[in-house]
């Protein structure tokens, strides 16, 4: 793999990237109160007196949030700390009613781990995880709704977040994007976070610095507010170049917090004149240490689905899929499940091994199905063509009952109407055999095989013609044109 380098006037520079990702935990109630976490409610209707920091109210931890943090830690191959502690992070802001955020500073629930990211050209790389801790989200401030006031909604205040901190292991915009994508995939697989960056349930802060290859780390800047994969890559690219320009002009990098401006695709200083933040962390006296036993961890482990890396390996090794197909299918759990469901049905319907039909099934999903879903702006979860219907269509192709060309047309129709492949094929006569010569042969064969029924017919029991039609249909796998069969039978029996 070629290494990513920024070509400066004085030589090459290497970029070093670390990330802090805030992921909102999927739970019904908040981290320390019984108020709802649902998105989009009327302002301040999902706020308890605990969230509003009324005097005397005490936080009580939500077990589901603890369980999800442990499950996420396991998915990140990380050390789970059976003893952790909550600290207060003190700062003033209107959307933080208590004047402090309950977080985990010195003793996080999850320690070091790693994730594997996939890069161009079948290359994988491990990115280290420094830690994961639980903390409360703040409320939401709106500065543009009123000319004179900032409006504050506390519905989000107290919702559980996991802050996942990577090690500074990424070296290019591509790696940064791949890390965030992988994290999102993992969180969605295990159902710990919905990964919705637009609604803000997953937010990334990106630390960027540059150095001469092989030298110690340079001074880093933290870029806030980077809310899509594309923006992460753009922010890294912009920020690294900015730092190189400063250094080459003989300047120094100020360690500072910068905002990513998605409109201009650049980062800019938050120009905070205030002194450096002093959060004065201390253990929260309202909360005892968070402790759990091995059984709790093992139950969390047992609740994890097959993880995407394991799936990908299985698809390549056991099913013989090309690695591109495997990687793309496992990115979303729904797509992987669709594939597995379809594959099982297809193997059963065709009497073949999964391995024999897997490549065809994956190609069809990635090109035909994904192509149509993208065009229609739909997700695979609400695909108008379900796995069993897709399997039926592919079965027709594999058995040679329709051509690949016809299959594309049939799929169009299935996607538009939600109808089944066989129904469409029959209605449109796409495989139907109407050729009298071909059918006459089968009619002869059926009559020859059933002399008793022929006698019955000729003796006046003409209803037995239904039996012959059935036999011919069976011989032709339902592809014979019944009207033609009827006509041919009558000619032969009556004549």
């Amino acid at each position: 793999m070629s290494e990513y380098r920024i070509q400066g006037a004085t030589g090459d520079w290497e970029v070093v990237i670390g990330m802090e990702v805030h992921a909102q935990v999927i739970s019904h109630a908040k981290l320390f109160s019984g108020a709802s976490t649902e998105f989009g409610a009327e302002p301040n209707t999902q706020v308890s007196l605990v969230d509003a920091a009324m005097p005397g109210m005490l936080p009580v931890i939500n077990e589901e949030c603890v369980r999800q943090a442990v499950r996420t830690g396991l998915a990140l191959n990380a050390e789970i700390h059976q003893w952790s502690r909550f600290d207060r992070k003190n700062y003033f802001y209107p959307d933080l009613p208590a004047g402090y955020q309950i977080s985990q500073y010195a003793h996080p629930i999850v320690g070091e781990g790693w994730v594997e990211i996939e890069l161009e050209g079948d290359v994988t790389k491990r990115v280290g995880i420094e830690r994961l801790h639980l903390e409360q989200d703040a409320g939401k401030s709106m500065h543009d709704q009123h000319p004179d006031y900032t409006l504050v909604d506390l519905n989000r205040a107290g919702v559980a977040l996991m802050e996942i901190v990577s090690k500074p292991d990424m070296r290019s915009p591509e790696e940064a994007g791949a890390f965030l994508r992988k994290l999102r995939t993992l969180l969605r697989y295990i159902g710990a976070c919905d990964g919705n960056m637009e609604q803000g349930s997953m937010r990334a802060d990106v630390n960027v610095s540059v150095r001469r290859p092989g030298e110690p780390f340079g001074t880093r800047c933290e870029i806030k507010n980077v809310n899509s994969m594309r923006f992460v890559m753009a922010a890294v690219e912009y920020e690294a170049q900015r730092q190189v320009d400063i250094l080459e002009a003989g300047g120094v990098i100020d360690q500072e917090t910068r905002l990513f401006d998605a409109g201009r695709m650049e980062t800019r200083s938050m120009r905070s004149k205030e002194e450096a933040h002093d959060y004065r962390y201390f253990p929260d006296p309202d909360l005892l240490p968070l402790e759990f036993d091995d059984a709790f961890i093992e139950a969390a482990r047992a609740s994890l689905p097959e993880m995407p890396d394991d799936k990908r390996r299985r698809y390549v090794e056991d099913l013989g899929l090309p690695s591109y197909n495997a990687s793309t299918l496992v990115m979303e759990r729904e797509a992987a499940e669709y594939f597995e469901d379809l594959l099982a049905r297809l193997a059963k319907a065709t009497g073949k091994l999964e391995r024999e039909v897997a490549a065809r099934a994956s190609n069809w999903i990635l090109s035909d199905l994904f192509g149509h879903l993208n065009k229609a702006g739909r997700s695979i979860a609400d695909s108008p063509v379900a796995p069993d219907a897709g399997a039926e269509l592919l079965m027709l192709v594999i058995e040679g009952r329709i051509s690949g060309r016809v299959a594309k047309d049939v799929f169009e129709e299935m996607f538009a109407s939600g109808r089944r492949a066989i129904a469409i094929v029959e209605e449109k006569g796409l495989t139907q055999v109407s050729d009298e010569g071909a059918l006459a042969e089968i009619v002869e064969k059926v009559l020859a095989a059933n002399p008793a029924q022929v006698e019955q017919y000729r003796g006046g029991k003409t209803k037995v013609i239904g039996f012959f039609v059935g036999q011919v249909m069976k011989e032709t796998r339902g592809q014979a044109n019944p009207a033609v069969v009827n006509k041919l039978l009558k000619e032969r029996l009556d004549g």
Partner: protein
Amino acid sequence: MSIDAATVERIARLARIRIEDDQRDALVGELSGILSWVEQLRAIDTDGVAPMTSAVAHGLHWRADKVTDGDIRDKVLANAPLVIEGYFAVPKVIE
């Protein structure tokens, strides 16, 4: 350990508490006094003693993940100096 006037001012600023000049010297004395009183604890040998996290011998209480609270907007907003359309309204803050 004692603290100086600058430290008192910094603590006041972080806590968003306004102190007048004539209060400052008194606070230097009072805060230093509290610290030196706590400092006496350092004289005790605590090697091998596990940190005490609570005066009561039980663990953290956990709650089930159920919605049991909320929908009390009037109560939540009752003490707010200004409410606009269900929001707390505060003087404009922009980073």
